[in-house]
């Protein structure tokens, strides 16, 4: 989408001359659509600053005084602070592991010459079609046997595994696209295969690494089911799980629950606002290749 920027800049004076009724309708319609996206978020933000009584006496007015008590309560008593930290640890470790392991396998498939490479690719790609629900029970019983249930490692392992297919798929595309001469050259200079992989091929596939990293990180950050099943200790829960538990039928303090929702989505929104174009295009590029 970057290339459209200068184009748009050139065309603006032309389009200003003839704003057709159709264009007006399109803009009004899109504006309304966007309202449905922003208004719910603003509503939650507004309510999260109120006291519980204000929600019912003046539901849509601005809060009388801005108080952060609700946020503080959700952060500490609701375990959302520790949950954010846990989510961060799990996602970063899973991201690093899946990127390294996945791109190594992708390099093996794309560049090394052996008979089974096509078969290996098919094997990994079937993973994309398999819903996580199917492996939940065997994984749960087995991890309990190994003492991995209720640990963050027990979450990281499946997260890495479920990120592998998409990583391998996208990175194989990037490695296949690299020119042969590069590897020949490096080989002539006396580099071994691991130097070629880590010092030449990986740095040249930065775009691919960015795309896959983004996809796996967002996917794992938002994952609920597996984390809910595997972790029962409040101090090891990830963000979606702690949130779902805090905002439950037994809680009656609405403004605290709304504050919890805001805490859960605000990191993603900030990162998204900062890099939205890169994120949107990156995720689409990954999906197009997938």
């Amino acid at each position, binding site marked *: 989408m970057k290339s*459209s920027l200068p184009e*748009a800049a050139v065309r*603006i004076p032309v*389009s200003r001359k003839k704003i057709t009724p159709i264009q007006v309708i*399109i*803009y009004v*319609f*899109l504006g309304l*659509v*966007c309202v449905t*996206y922003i208004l*719910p*978020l603003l*509503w*939650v933000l507004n309510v999260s600053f109120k006291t519980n009584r204000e*929600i019912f006496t003046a*539901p*849509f007015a601005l809060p009388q005084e801005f108080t952060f008590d609700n946020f503080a309560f959700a952060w500490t008593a609701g375990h959302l602070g520790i949950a954010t930290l846990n989510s961060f640890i799990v996602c970063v470790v899973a991201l690093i592991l899946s990127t390294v*392991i996945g791109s*190594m396998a992708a390099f*093996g*498939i794309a560049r*090394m*010459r*052996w008979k089974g490479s096509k078969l*290996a690719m098919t094997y990994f790609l079937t*993973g994309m*079609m*398999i*819903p996580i*629900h*199917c*492996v*939940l*029970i*065997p994984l749960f*019983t*087995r991890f309990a046997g190994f003492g991995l249930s209720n640990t963050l490692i027990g979450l990281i392992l499946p997260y890495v595994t479920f990120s*592998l297919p998409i990583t391998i798929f996208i990175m194989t595309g990037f490695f296949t696209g690299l020119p042969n001469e590069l590897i020949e050259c490096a*080989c002539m200079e006396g580099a*071994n*295969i691991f130097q070629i*992989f880590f010092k030449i091929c990986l740095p040249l596939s930065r775009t691919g690494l960015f795309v896959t990293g983004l996809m796996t990180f*967002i996917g794992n950050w*938002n994952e*609920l*089911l597996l984390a809910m*099943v595997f972790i029962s200790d409040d101090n090891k829960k990830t963000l*979606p799980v702690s*949130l*779902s538990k805090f905002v439950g039928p037994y809680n009656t303090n609405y403004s605290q629950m*709304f504050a919890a*929702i805001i805490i859960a*989505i605000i990191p*993603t929104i900030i990162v*998204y606002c900062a890099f939205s174009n890169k994120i*949107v295009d990156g*995720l*689409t590029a990954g*999906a197009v290749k997938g």
Partner: protein
Amino acid sequence: MDKMLRNKVSIIIFMLPAFILFTLVLFIPIVQSVYYSFCDYKGMTDPVFIGFDNYTALFSDKTFGIAFKNSMFFLVFSCVSQLIVGLFYAVLLTNIKAGRNLFKNIIYLPCVLSSAALGLLWMFIFSPKLGINQLLEGMGIEEPPLWLMDTKGFITLPMWIIAFVALWQYVGQSMMLYMAQISGINKSLYEASYIDGCTKFQTFRHITLPLIRPMVATALSLNAIGSLKFFDLIFNMTEGGPNHKTEVLATHLYQQGFKYFKYGYASAIGVVLLVLCLIVTLFINKVVKTEQYEM
């Protein structure tokens, strides 16, 4: 160089970590899951082989019937609605010049947000005392609808609400896929069609639609698998209630497996889900994917 690339040891080093993880955490558990689905396995005792009993029990389980119906409704609704609305947004956005990125980013935003959090958000909007009902109360409507508590109809009102929330959340994904494909179409094709006197609708029907067909297959299979796996939104909006009316396969599996600890029975539901995913993917790729055009 050839010798280096054929070196068995380095091939093994490259492939082994991924292969071990994939086999241990994904492949063996699936085989195990299929085996459990033929077993009487309640968690405390070891699994005992009982043949097809779990699968015959599925047919007499009323909740499974509802869950299956809802999953199918969800599958069809999300495929059709995302195709139509996503394509519509994509066409609108490719036809405007200023502000395209802004609209695009706003519509895409919920795709990256946690659906657990968004599910809770919409649960509050449709809850009996908050959100929309407060708005209706302000307008003087005495008896507002029950929204997520309604149980009437073949496809209940809560199911429709969840389906529309899912559309709201994920339509950005389809929209972006179609936009990427549409902006890849050669502009001279459109110019030629205008010279030949085509209307906007005709160019859309005869140029845009055929050329984005491969992407329709991709987007549809992403939607289909996504909607079969669907869990977070429903779990946080209704938890399958009221009276199991909004149960889908994934929530039913969770209930049976991790609330009642019927591991064998839940595995059978999981196998049904797996088979559905495979069938749907194969079906979409067979039917929609046709010849690729030069662009």
